Structures are given as C-alpha cells and as structure tokens.
C-alpha cells in the first residue's frame, strides 16, 4: 500500500461474542459515515450466543465501493482465542493492534507487520472499578485509540454518544472518558496518524445507514401490512422485530392503545405461512419472513397459495445451505427453491433487492404485486444485506400512492354481475376476480381449495377444466412479466460483446469489478436482475452478447439454470462466476474468475 492513503483501507475487529463489542464497533463505523466517507461494515459472527470468536470488518472507500474487499490493513485483536489466525490475516505492511496488558505470545510476532500494543485491561482497571464496566469500556478505549490513529474527529464520536444515550445522559461522560483514555494513550506512545487515515469528505450527501431487515420491516409498515406471522430464524428474525418496533411507533392508537396490526409468533414456519395465507384470503395484507430452511417447510402452503391464487408476501433472507448449512453466513442459494416452491407445475414471483432502499421499496411493491397478481411474492434478500448495516439512499414515499389491492369485487359490483366466477379470465390477462368472505349475502361466495376446480370454483377432476386453469395461470405468469420490476442496464446498452449479469448483494462487488476489469482493458456491459419472471430485456441482453458472466453466490449456478430453463438461454454463452464460502463476494474474486475464463477460452481457441 502506498504511503498516505486517504479513506481507503480495511479494519477488522476480532472480539469475543457477547462482550459488548458490537456497539463500540458500530460507533467506529458510524463516525466514519458521519465524516461523509463511504464505509461498509460486515459482521462475521458465529451461530452461538456467547463466548465464540466474532469479527467485524469495516471497509472504507474513497471511491464509494461498498462491497467487501479482502486484505486486512489493520487488525484490532482483542480475542486471545483467535489471535493466531488474526495475526496471519493481516496483509504485509499492515498493523496489528492488541491488548498489551499481557505480553504478546512470541509465536504471534511477524517481521512484516507493525504492532500497536495498548494495555487496554490495565487502563480499564486503573480507571473503572465495576467488572462489567471494565469489560465494556475496553472496547470504547480501542475506539478512542483508533480515532487518534486514523484521524476520526472526536466531536463526531461525542455526537454519536449523545445520540446513543438520549434519555440516559448520565452514561455519556464515562463513555467520553473511555474514548479520551484511548486517544491519550496513542498520543503519548505512538506516531500518528497512520499512513492510511481518514479525511472528512462530503461523498454521502443525505445518505442513511441501516440494515436491510429493518428496511423490510419499515417497508411492510408503509405497505399497509396488518398481519405478520413468523417463526424466528437467523438471519431473518430482525425483519419482523423491526416491523414490530415500527408498528409500536406508527400503528398504536394513542387514545385507546389499540393496535392496527396483529403480529403472531407462530409455532413453526408451516403455521406462519398458513396464517399469512388465511389473512390474505380474508383481505388483510399479511407477510412472513424466514430463511431457506423455513421456505422448505413452507413449500406445501406456497403451492396452495399459487394454485388457489391467494396473495402472500414472504421475505426470504438467505443464508448458506443446504440443510442447516452455516446459519450465520451469507449465500444466494434459495433461488431455485423459491422460484419453483412446491410440487407440481408451480412458479413463484421473486424480487431481488440490492440495497436497504430497495428492501424498503420492494417490500412495499411486493404487497401490491402479490394482490394484483393474486399469488405469493417471495423477496430474496440475504444475510449480508439483511443483517449488516449499509450506506443507502434515504427512503422515499409518495403520499399520493394508493395501495393496489388487485381485482376485488365489492357487494355493489357483485350486484351487477349475473354470475360470479372466481376463476374466470374476464380481462384476458389470466388474473381472475376475487371476493373477500362476508361481502355479499348471496353472491360471490366460493370455495377455496388446493384441488382442481372449474372457473366457478367448483371441484372437478375434468382434465379439460384442469388444463384450462393451468394455462390461465401461465397467462397470468406472462402478465406478471409486465408488472414486476424491470432489470437495470448498468452503464450503456450493448456496447461490448460480453456482459455481467448479477442480482442482489452481488451488485456491490460487480460494480467495482467492472472498474477493475476496465483497468485491465477488459470491457463489459452489465445487467442487474431485479425480479423473476424475467422480462424481455433480460432475454435481449443475453441474445445481444457473446458471453454472459452470471455472478451468483451459490455452488450450483442456480440463476444460470433459471435463465436456461425460463429463457431458453444458450448454455454455451453463460459463464458462471460463483462464490459460496459464506462470505460476501468481492470484486477481486469476480475479476480473477473473469480473467481466468478469458485465458481459458483463448487457450481453447488456440488449440
């Protein structure tokens, strides 16, 4: 790394799970954010409550790259358990900050890195008497030390503490003192700042910082969701928890204390989706959030909702599979499971948000889409987007926006209809009309079932009626293509012969990878898929390029399979760029895989 690098480095914190380090580490990140500098943190945590090693990685990027970057410039190592590994992971020339209250094990000494020893424990013991405080403030002291080493403005940190302890102002001075202890120790003992450091910028404008799950929860409130049924599962749990918190803020009648929302923690995922389907059938906007194992359990009900044409919104925050996989690591491996959830010929509408802003917007859109199409809509986010904080554009809401409740007949409308047919394709778009239970004394009632029925919802095993119904569902699928969010062409259209295709959180690394490729004189077009079914733009993009690099975070190239199956895309064109180690994909990784493919194809051609 060259000298005096400004706003371009990676810091990793190695902590013990459950010691209060999360809030200290977030303080560090948020301070950089408030200095107007693009920053992206990643939690790397165990599937465990307390005691195991946990890491928190912060990338700072002057260029605004918000994907993960490998190579650690500064390691803050305060977990003895993981120290051997932590020392190894620092890049040559990087820094290793540790608690020097105890002498460092000689095995951990590397010639090619710099050591910053701070007697965190000793300072704590000298300044605090309470055992819990000693543990908590150790974390704040290292944040103070980093502030000095990297040039974080002290007033920014003070401002953050003031926000954090609003209403509990008594706690502020002791925290400020801890920060100051860290700053002072650096000032007295080290050369500072480091060769890479921070400088205030105005690169973020009015950006916000939030995790995707909270954004989904807020989106559901704005969308008018009134029933949430769920079963806790990492990494989706905080979606409904956020919904609950926002509902506490926005959905409680101040006078009566009554709530415009019903949130039920179900006994399992099967019940959760059952409740969602029951509520939607009865005209309430309802959703659930889960992860891959939960979607597996919900499959049967999703098939019912598809076939019986009942809206349902499901937010699947993907984690690594198969089976229990790595519950606290990220992946995009539920694509096929979600697209074809349940037995028989089923197809489910999918949405792929990439940022918290899209989590907010797409959650709101999901309810409109689901009711308009009368079918489940599954939003596929992932652990990286859901549980990590991200810099995002602020959320926006158009007050004129009306909820699209789809084709629902009122009693007055039913009065004018000779004979209501629940599954009649009146408008030739494959979408029938529905009625809510209790609407009309004599008209509009029908039987909802997972067995075959005719246009009037009457049970039948007549093959022609079954086939007519299945064909209408396919027509509805065609209609869906015109309703789901269109893909985004990144940059110019059809300039080069190769194109990157990506979705979800791969977007962060893909954008950066395009710049890295350019530096190597490799030029590509790019398309970001936002939904399934794919519309014509996706098909055109594939047709118009010789090579398509399909970037996805799973082993089996699930998106590639989906493109082949649904668009009949030529497999020879589709080159997979895969990442499935549980960590978010990086730009370097994409670059390497593209370069390798180019080398390989050249070799093949020359042969």
């Amino acid at each position, binding site marked *: 790394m060259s000298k005096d690098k400004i706003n371009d480095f990676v810091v990793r914190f190695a902590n013990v799970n459950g010691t209060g380090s999360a809030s200290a580490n977030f303080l560090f990140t948020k301070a950089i954010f408030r200095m107007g500098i693009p920053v992206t943190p990643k939690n790397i945590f165990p599937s465990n409550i307390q005691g195991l090693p946990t890491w928190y990685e912060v990338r700072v990027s002057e260029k605004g790259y918000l994907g993960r970057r490998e190579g650690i410039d500064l390691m803050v190592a305060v977990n003895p358990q993981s120290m051997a590994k932590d020392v190894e992971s620092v890049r040559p020339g990087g820094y290793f900050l540790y608690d020097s209250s105890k002498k460092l094990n000689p095995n951990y000494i590397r010639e090619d890195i710099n050591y910053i020893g701070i007697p965190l424990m000793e300072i704590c013991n000298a300044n605090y008497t309470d055992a819990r405080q000693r543990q908590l403030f150790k974390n704040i002291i290292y944040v103070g030390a980093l502030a000095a080493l990297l040039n974080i403005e002290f007033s920014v940190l003070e401002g953050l503490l003031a926000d954090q302890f609003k209403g509990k102002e008594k706690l502020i001075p002791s925290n400020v003192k801890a920060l100051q202890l860290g700053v002072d120790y650096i000032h007295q003992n080290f050369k500072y700042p480091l060769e890479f450091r921070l400088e205030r910028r105005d690169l973020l404008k009015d950006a916000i910082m939030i995790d995707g799950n909270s954004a989904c929860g807020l989106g559901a409130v704005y969308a008018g969701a009134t029933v949430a049924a769920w079963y806790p599962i990492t990494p989706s749990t905080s979606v409904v928890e956020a919904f609950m918190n926002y509902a506490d803020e926005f959905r409680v009648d101040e006078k009566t204390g009554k709530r415009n929302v*019903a949130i039920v923690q179900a*006994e399992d995922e099967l019940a959760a989706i*059952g409740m969602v389907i029951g509520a939607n*059938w*009865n005209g309430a906007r309802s959703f659930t959030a889960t992860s891959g194992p939960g979607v597996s359990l919900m499959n049967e009900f999703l098939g019912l909702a598809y076939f019986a044409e009942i809206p349902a919104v499901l937010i699947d925050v993907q984690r690594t599979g198969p089976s229990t996989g790595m519950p606290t690591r990220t992946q995009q491996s539920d694509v096929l499971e979600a697209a074809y959830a349940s037995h028989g010929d089923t197809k489910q509408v999918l949405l792929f948000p990439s940022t918290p802003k899209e989590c907010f917007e797409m959650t709101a859109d999901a309810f409109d889409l689901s009711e308009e199409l009368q079918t489940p809509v599954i939003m596929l986010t992932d652990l990286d987007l859901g549980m990590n904080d991200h810099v995002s554009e602020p959320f926006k809401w158009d007050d004129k926006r009306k909820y699209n409740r789809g084709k629902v007949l009122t009693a007055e409308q039913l009065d004018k209809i000779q004979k209501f047919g629940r599954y009649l394709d009146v408008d030739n778009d494959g979408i029938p009309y529905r009625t809510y239970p209790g609407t009309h004394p*004599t008209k509009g009632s029908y*039987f909802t079932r997972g067995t075959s029925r005719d246009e009037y919802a009457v049970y039948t095993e007549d093959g022609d009626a079954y086939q007519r119904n299945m064909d209408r569902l396919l027509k509805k699928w065609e209609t869906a293509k015109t309703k789901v969010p269109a893909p985004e062409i990144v940059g110019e259209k059809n300039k080069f012969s190769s194109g990157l295709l990506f979705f979800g959180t791969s977007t962060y690394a893909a954008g950066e990878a395009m710049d890295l490729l350019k530096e190597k004189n490799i030029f590509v077009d790019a398309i970001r898929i936002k939904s399934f079914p794919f519309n014509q733009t996706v098909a055109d993009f594939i047709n118009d390029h010789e090579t398509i690099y399909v970037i996805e975070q799973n082993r089996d190239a699930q998106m590639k399979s989906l493109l082949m199956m649904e668009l009949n895309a030529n497999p020879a064109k589709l080159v997979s760029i895969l990442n499935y180690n549980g960590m978010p994909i990086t730009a370097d990784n994409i670059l390497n895989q593209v370069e390798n493919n180019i080398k390989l194809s050249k070799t093949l051609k020359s042969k």
Partner: protein
Amino acid sequence: MTYVKPKFRHPELKKNKLGYTIDYYEGSLSTLCAGCGHDSISAGIVQACYDLNIEPHRLAKLSGIGCSSKTPAYFLSNSHGFNSVHGRMPSVATGANLANKELIYFGVSGDGDSASIGMGQFVHVIRRNLNMVYVVMNNGCYGLTKGQDSATADHGSKNKSGNTNIFEAIDLTSLALELGATFVAQSFSGDKTQLVPLIKAAMSHPGFAFINVISPCVTFNNNPGSTKSYDYVREHIEATATFDFVPEMQEISVSYKEGSAKQVTMHDGSKIQLQKLSEDWDPLNRQSAMNAILNAKSKDEILTGLIYVDPNTKDLHHMINTSDTPLNQLNEKDLCPGSKALDEVNAGLR
C-alpha cells in the same frame, strides 16, 4: 364430480327470524358414503345456523384434508369455504380471524387431520384461544385411503381387515381440556338432539370452542370389534347431562326438575341449560371435567355433552389488543405513516 342438490323444497317450510328456510343453509350434495356420520354433523351445523339466525355469508368455514374436511362444501353454500392443507386448517383460520374478527369461524377437521399431522396446530390454536368453533369428526380411521387406523383409534379396537390396534389412542377431548381450551364438548353424530345445542353453544362462545364428535365410518370402521362403530358407541355412550342451548332473548322453557338444573350464561346473554347427572362434575371447573372424562374412560364409557366451559374468556384479539375495526377494513389513511414521518426516520439513520 360436481353434485347440485335439486332446488325443490316444500313450500310450507318454516322460516327463521331472518326469513330463511332451512334449505338456505344447505350446501351441495354430499359425496361421502351413504350413512356417513359426517353428514349427520353437517346437518347439525345447518340446523344450528338456521336456529341461531346466522347470515350464512357472515360465517367462514375452513377445513384441512380428508373425508371430514370435504364437509364444508355440504353446508352453508353462501359462505366462503377454505379447504386448506392436511392438518393446517388452524393456522389458516388464525390468519383469517386476525384479518376480520367480525365473521364467525367454523373449522372442521378429522382425526387424521387433527391428531396426526395437525397435532401441532391443534395444540397451538387452543393456546391462542382463537375465537372459532373447531369440530373434529372423529371416526378413528382413514376413510379416503380405505380404512387404516388413525391416531384416535382405541387400543384393542379392530379395523375392517380384522387387525387389532396395538397403540394407545390420542384423546383429543382430554388434550383440549389439558391445554386450556375454554369450551370443550364431546358428542356422537347419531345424537342430533345433543349435538345441535352443543354446536349452538360453541358458536356463541367468545373463544376457542372444541367439539369432538364420534362419527362412525360406515364403510371402513363400522365392523364388530371397532370402538368407533355405531353399535359400540350407542352401547357405551354416557351423557354428562341433558343439554339445551337457549339463545339470547328467547324465553327459557323449564323442562328440568328444579334444583338439579345448572344454567351457564354466555357472554352474549344466551344460556346453556344443563340437567346435572353427576354430583361431582362441574362444567365450570376444569379439574372436575377432567375427572369426569377419566372416570368415564375407566368404565369404557364415552362421555358426551358439554364437558367444560369458561364463559368469560378473552380471545386472541383481546390478548394482542387489535383495533375495533377489522384489520382488513383499514386503508392507507389508517396504516401508512406518510412521507413526513419517513423523513424523520431517515434523519434518525444519519
């Protein structure tokens, strides 16, 4: 196949207070076997709804999968029905009820449905005290797959192939009592006199009302040796009490000996009139009700009637304090906090 009942009815059919004749409460023609106990229960539901002057479209009928779960098609054709997935009717009913608390929710299930795959949901819907009627049409066997034992088949009972069941039965009634159900009743499909008032009482109960109805399967479990055959049930039935349900505002006709009758007033003012048979059984006392069931069991008797009721119970909506307006009737104005509030949310995230 689709069956439609002939529309002809006797022109002099009596009308209820809403002006409907009983055929207004019927559904399509049953496709169950002739003599199926389930059809008698459907008829009981029709009678109860007619007697109680229920607007059929204000009732939602939900079921799972199985013979019993087909029955909602055979009553109240002007109601919305939902034939969901095997054993998971309770969750669908929960969602539906959360969306609109103003309808009456009538769940129909079978012993395969509730005592096997649906056991989890059965247990939890009781825990939540969802305001619904939950009827199990219990025949101890799987009719749709031709007569295999279900989890409620009694130990030692013989199935149609002559095999003796070696497993203990799951007793849904005791289970419901144990789990805190606030209305527990048991009846026999062949006893309409008892069943109809029980259904009526269940419908006026403001929480979870469970009725386990022994409903013999005429085709696959009506053989000698079966403990859920018509003959066996008729020989072993033991009623808790003579029972009557008196709707609100209706004059109470005293047909019992004074001093031995017990009256329970429901939340809506209607009354349950019980002729007490057993001195040590009190339908308002869960422990006493449990003892009554255990005593009957020890004597190989099937206890029927209203076994337990807590008339002052609070349902799920009360517990989670939802708005008086049904949730499915709220709109943008009630639900969306708007752009100004969102600006504040954004500001808090900087």
